[in-house]
Every structure is written in structure tokens, then in C-alpha cells.
């Protein structure tokens, strides 16, 4: 007994007492067991009374020991549950293939605690349906629409499905959740929690040593306490003995693990490159896989296959071709984009031209403005002011842009004239709005629907050039425009400068004149005041100077006249100054508006 691990001994004892650890969830089992033990004790006590006093003590000791073992088992089980948290049964790896009918429509796993909705007979996991209906909570219990058929339903107290469904789903084989750690067990789903809690060698339990409180894998528990420091022989890292095995298997970079396929020992740190590049036994696809060869062979025999496989032989060429095709496709995309831009520009030019063509007067005005375009124009349609078509002759050819709303003017056509072709017969007769006269020379005309958003086919060589020609004209016009506006600006600046200079001079003159006038008025003032004084002084001796009197008043009157004249001159000067000022203000304003225009 002493050699066997403690968990097995306690199990043996508990099964002696009629305890069955399977087929019940662990928590409820624990409670049941504790509750059932007192009657057992009483029964054995009464039996001991009958047997006699001496055997009574032995029986008691036995009973006490059994109880202690049981308590130990239960507490160790509870502890192991703490160490091994409950398993999420939905995340398990199912070994047996199961039917779609055993799958909950919500979580897509085999039913867990399935319930059936009485209203529509659809089954779901209890948790899934509760979670679905969590938002539509009612105090009468969970209710809502069936997720499968939208029938209003509720979860009653008798909603559990029949036992057979529970049994079928609980009997599905799953891999132990510790399979990554090394447990190879495959158990029924209903028992997997017990497997981990009680049997699984890769689940944790408490260390068997009395003074050690760390946990240890169950399979290592029999070896005594492994919680002492060691250092890995390969990488010299120090750790506890208990975790050495995991370290060797997963982490240690310097330990060699044997490859399952080629039986070769490989360093852990080289494992990736080994499986990807070197392992001769691993199965790799044919190099011509992308081109259709589906065969796989071991790496060591890949060359043999490649020699016989047509796909593998063609692969380098096919890859190169694919690459070239991709490149060309990309280039084509760029070209398409360019073409779109050009088309847009062409259409813009066309709309400009056709709007100008709407009004013949405006065309006349345009002639002066666009010298490049109408350098050698042959305008027809002077009869009745109705312009049928505008013909522009160029070196390459001449073509006509009809207005877009050409439905009313059926003679919208593109006239293509070779250089040197006789023009006069073509244009001598004014074209009447209506069907094109039949006597027009056919070789020179060609119907072309300009209202279509798509350009003429590029195959007809000459039609590419009008587009280019128009675009270049557009560009040169733009240049011309910018040159003109620059010249205008320059001119304007010069003019305003000149006006300013002129203004300055005029103002100086005016102020000089004003000063002169002021001096004059002062002199006159002095003269008049002297005259007045003389008159006052001579008031007494007026009789005496009777003859001088009339002459004095004459002087005063003359003084007043001079003063009036001077003031008129001053006001005139002021008026002149006002006019000059106003003129300056006007130039200023014009400068401002000019600036505004250039900004716009």
C-alpha cells in the first residue's frame, strides 16, 4: 500500500465503501458521499455492539480510518479541480465523426445539456438558447422566437430532451484536453471531466511531499517531491526537476528531438527549417502544383518525380510567362488610365468648341481670341446665320465638330480633306439644314457620331492626330493666355506708377501755389489793417484831411476787392487739389480691382 500512489489507495477504499466515482458530475457526487456516510457509521457501530467489546475497538479504528481516507479523497479531488479548471466541452477535439443532426444550430457542436422547445420541437443546448434569449428576458422564464423557425417559444421546466439524445452526444469519443502535453487517451465526452480530475497523468495534482505545496503532474507524483533545482544538461538553464520534461519537449533549443518521419535527431531550434526544407521523408507537392500536377512525393524522391512530370519540366517557363503576363496586364491598366484621361481632355475641348459654335457671332469673336485654332478657317453657313459645321483645315486633315445636340441638324459629319484636295466645290454651296446633299464627294466625308462618349477606333491612324492636335492647341492657348495676362499685369503696374509720379508733382505744385496765395492774403490783410488804423487815427482830423479822405476809402475798397480775388483763387486751388485727390483715389481703386481680378 505504501508503494502505490495515494490517489489509487483512496480510490480502492472508497469503492470498498460502495462509492462509484463515474456517471455523475463531481460536485454533486461529493455532496452525496458526505451525506451518506453517517448512517454507515451508525450501522457499523450497532454491529460492533453485538460482536463484543474487544472487537468493537478494532472496528471503530477501521471505521475511523475509512472515514479519514474518504475525506482525504474528497479534499484531494476538490483540490485537483482547483488545479484543473472545468473543461470547455465545446473546445474538445472530437475523434468520432458526428451527424449534423447531433449539432446545436447555434454553437455547431454536439448538444450539451440539450433542451427541446415544446412549440416547434427544435433542440438547442440549454446555454445557447438562454444566451440567445438573454435580451428578451421575462420574469416567467426564458422566452423568445425559435432561432431555427422563428416560432414564439419558451423554456418550460420539462424542456430537457429525451435521455437518448443526451446519451448519444455524451458517448462521442474525444481526445483528452491534455493531448498537447502528451496524454494519448481518448475518452467519452461525458467522462472527460472525470478523466482529467482523477486519471489523466498529465493533469496537475498537489505534490505528495508533506511540506511541499507546489503542484505536479499526476504521472510524476509517485516519484516523490520533484521540486528541487536542476539545470538542463543541454542548455544549462536552471529549473525545477518537475518542469524539466516539458522544457525538453518544447523549449530547450539545444536538445535533440527525433523526427517522427525520418527518425533523425534534430535540434529543437532547427525544427522549423528541418520540417520545411531538409527532412527527406516529409511529403512535398510537385513543383508544378500551381499548373495542375496534384501528386505529392517524399522529398528524397522529388527529383525522380520531377524528371517524369511534364508540369515540373514546364514550371520555370510557365512561371516566367505568368510573370510577363502580370507585367503586361499592369502596363495595360496604366495605358487604359491614360486613355481615359486623354478622352476626358478631348471631350472637354469638344464641348468648348461646340458651345462656341452654337452662336455664330461668338464664333466671330472667337476668331480673334483663338488665333491658333482659326488661323486658316473656312467658315460656311453665312446664309441665315445658321452654321452647319465648322471646318478647320489642318496639315493632316480637316474635320468638323458638330454640336452635341445634333439631332436637329442631321448634317453633322466629319469631313476629312486630304491636303491639296480641292476645297471650293465642297464648300461653295451653303449647306441647308436637312439631309446631306447627295452630290457631296463621298471619299471625303465620313459619318462620325461625336455625341458618343467613346472615341473612334484607334486603328484609323489619322484620327488619333486630331486629338493630339486639339490638345496641343489647347496647351498653346493656355500658354498664350498666361503670357497675355503677365503682360497685362506689367502694363498695369507701369501705368499706375506713372500716375502716381504725375500726381506727386501736381500736388507739390498745388501746395507751392497755396503757400504763395497764403503769403499774398497775409500781405493784403496787413495792407487792409494798416489802412483801417490810418482811418481811425485820422477820424479826428477828418475835416483837416478832407481831401485825403476819399482817396483813403478808395484804397480800402481796392483792398477788399483784392482780398475777394485772392479767396476765389484759393478756393479754385482747393477744388483742383480735390480733383487730383479724387483722381488718385480712382487709380488706387482700379489698382485694387486689378489685383482682385488677378487673384480670382
Amino acid at each position, binding site marked *: 500500500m505504501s508503494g502505490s500512489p495515494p490517489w489509487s489507495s483512496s480510490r480502492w477504499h472508497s469503492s470498498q465503501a460502495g462509492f462509484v466515482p463515474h456517471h455523475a458530475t463531481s460536485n454533486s457526487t461529493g455532496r452525496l458521499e458526505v451525506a451518506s456516510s453517517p448512517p454507515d457509521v451508525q450501522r457499523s457501530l450497532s454491529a460492533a455492539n453485538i460482536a463484543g467489546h474487544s472487537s468493537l475497538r478494532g472496528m471503530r479504528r477501521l471505521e475511523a480510518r475509512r472515514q479519514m481516507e474518504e475525506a482525504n479523497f474528497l479534499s484531494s479531488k476538490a483540490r485537483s479541480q482547483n488545479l484543473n479548471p472545468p473543461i470547455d466541452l465545446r*473546445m474538445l477535439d472530437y475523434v468520432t465523426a458526428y451527424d449534423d443532426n447531433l449539432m446545436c444550430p447555434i454553437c455547431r*457542436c454536439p448538444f450539451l445539456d440539450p433542451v427541446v422547445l415544446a412549440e416547434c420541437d427544435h433542440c438547442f443546448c440549454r446555454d445557447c438558447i438562454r444566451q440567445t434569449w438573454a435580451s428578451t428576458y421575462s420574469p416567467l422564464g426564458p422566452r423568445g422566437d425559435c432561432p431555427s423557425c422563428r416560432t414564439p417559444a419558451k423554456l418550460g421546466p420539462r424542456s430537457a430532451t429525451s435521455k437518448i439524445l443526451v446519451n448519444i452526444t455524451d458517448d462521442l469519443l474525444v481526445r483528452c484536453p491534455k493531448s498537447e502535453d502528451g496524454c494519448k487517451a481518448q475518452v467519452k465526452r461525458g467522462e472527460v471531466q472525470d478523466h482529467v480530475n482523477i486519471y489523466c497523468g498529465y493533469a496537475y495534482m498537489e505534490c505528495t511531499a508533506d511540506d511541499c505545496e507546489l503542484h505536479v503532474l499526476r504521472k510524476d507524483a509517485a516519484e516523490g517531491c520533484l521540486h528541487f533545482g536542476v539545470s538542463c544538461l543541454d542548455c544549462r538553464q536552471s529549473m525545477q526537476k518537475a518542469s524539466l520534461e516539458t522544457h525538453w519537449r518544447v523549449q530547450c533549443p539545444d536538445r535533440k528531438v527525433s523526427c517522427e518521419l525520418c527518425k533523425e535527431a534534430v535540434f529543437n531550434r532547427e525544427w522549423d527549417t528541418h520540417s520545411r526544407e531538409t527532412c527527406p521523408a516529409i511529403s512535398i507537392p510537385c513543383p508544378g502544383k500551381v499548373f495542375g500536377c496534384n501528386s505529392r512525393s517524399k522529398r528524397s524522391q522529388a527529383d525522380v518525380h520531377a524528371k517524369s512530370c511534364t508540369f515540373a519540366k514546364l514550371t520555370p517557363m510557365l512561371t516566367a510567362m505568368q510573370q510577363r503576363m502580370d507585367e503586361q496586364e499592369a502596363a495595360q491598366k496604366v495605358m487604359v488610365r491614360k486613355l481615359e484621361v486623354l478622352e476626358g481632355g478631348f471631350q472637354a475641348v469638344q464641348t468648348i468648341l461646340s458651345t462656341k459654335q452654337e452662336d455664330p457671332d461668338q464664333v466671330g469673336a472667337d476668331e480673334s481670341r483663338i488665333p491658333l485654332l482659326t488661323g486658316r478657317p473656312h467658315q460656311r453657313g453665312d446664309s441665315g446665320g445658321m452654321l452647319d459645321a465648322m471646318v478647320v483645315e489642318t496639315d493632316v486633315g480637316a474635320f468638323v465638330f458638330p454640336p452635341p445636340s445634333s439631332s436637329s441638324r442631321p448634317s453633322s459629319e466629319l469631313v476629312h480633306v486630304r491636303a491639296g484636295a480641292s476645297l471650293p466645290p465642297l464648300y461653295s454651296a451653303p449647306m441647308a439644314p436637312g439631309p446631306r446633299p447627295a452630290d457631296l464627294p463621298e471619299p471625303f466625308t465620313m459619318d462620325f457620331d461625336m455625341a458618343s462618349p467613346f472615341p473612334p477606333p484607334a486603328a484609323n491612324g489619322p484620327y488619333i492626330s486630331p486629338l493630339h492636335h486639339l490638345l496641343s492647341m489647347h496647351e498653346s492657348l493656355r500658354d498664350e493666355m498666361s503670357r497675355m495676362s503677365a503682360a497685362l499685369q506689367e502694363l498695369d503696374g507701369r501705368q499706375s506708377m506713372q500716375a502716381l509720379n504725375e500726381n506727386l508733382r501736381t500736388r507739390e505744385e498745388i501746395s507751392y501755389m497755396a503757400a504763395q496765395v497764403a503769403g499774398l492774403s497775409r500781405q493784403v490783410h496787413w495792407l487792409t489793417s494798416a489802412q483801417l488804423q490810418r482811418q481811425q487815427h485820422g477820424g479826428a482830423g477828418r475835416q483837416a484831411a478832407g481831401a485825403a479822405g476819399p482817396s483813403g476809402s478808395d484804397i480800402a475798397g481796392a483792398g477788399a476787392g483784392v482780398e475777394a480775388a485772392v479767396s476765389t483763387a484759393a478756393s479754385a486751388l482747393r477744388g483742383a487739389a480735390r480733383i487730383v485727390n479724387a483722381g488718385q483715389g480712382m487709380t488706387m481703386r482700379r489698382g485694387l480691382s486689378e489685383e482682385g481680378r488677378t487673384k480670382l
Partner: protein
Amino acid sequence: MTAPLPKRIIKETERLQSEPVPGISASPHDDNARYFDVMVEGPGGSCYEGGVFSLELFLPDDYPMCPPRIRFLTRIYHPNIDRLGRICLDVLKNNWSPALQIRTILLSIQALLGAPNPDDPLNEAVAKQWKARENQPEAIKTAREWTRLYANK
């Protein structure tokens, strides 16, 4: 740290790859298994025939308790799909049920392309065009044109 991917999403992804729905493909991003690139072919006999429309699909954290978020990336002329590609479809909103899956939702969207519903519009202008009897041929022509322009392979 993010929660592990629910088994349901893993299973749906696996099934979408192993037995794809004809005319529909969905593949998750490498860095985010909840984000899918979707291609849906225009249903035969509709004005979207011959087009391949790309969509993006995202599974929120509480999927399958709430619907996936789906948006058209390709421009499409459709009364129930707006300029930003958002889709007006009842099962993507109130009528979502956790028993629905990515594949069933994508099938619904393909069906919506085959049968536009201008009575419950998201794109008012398109719906008006679609509803007016005399304009309908025009609308269908536009839809064809857009399919040719934007939804080309």
C-alpha cells in the same frame, strides 16, 4: 489578450473552404480570423449577371448572438445598397437568428441582388428610379452598366 476563437467560427471557416457555395467565396484574413474577404457573383438572369462583387465581412465578439457586419466594397447600383456599400437586409438587422451562418447570409445577399426590393430602400434615388414604371428599364440599364464598369473580374 484576446479570447480564443469560438469553435463555431473555426468550423464555419473550415466548411466554407472545404465545401464552398457555388458563386460565393469567403476567406479569412491571416492576421484576423474574424475578418473575411468575400466575393459574390451576380446571380444569373439578373442585371448583375457576370459581375463579381467583393464584400468585407466582420464577425463581432458576440457572434453568433449578433449578426456579422457586411459591406459591399464594389460599387453597385441597387435600391437596397447605399453609396458606402451598406446593405439593407432584415436578417442582418432585427431578423438575425443565431442559427444563421456566414454561408446562409451570403446566399441571402446573392438573392437580394437577384430580387431588389425598392419598397424598403436604403438608396432613395436609386429606389425612386427603380420604382417608377417608366424608368425601370433605365435603372436596369444603369445597373448593367455599373456592373460592367466596376464589377469586372
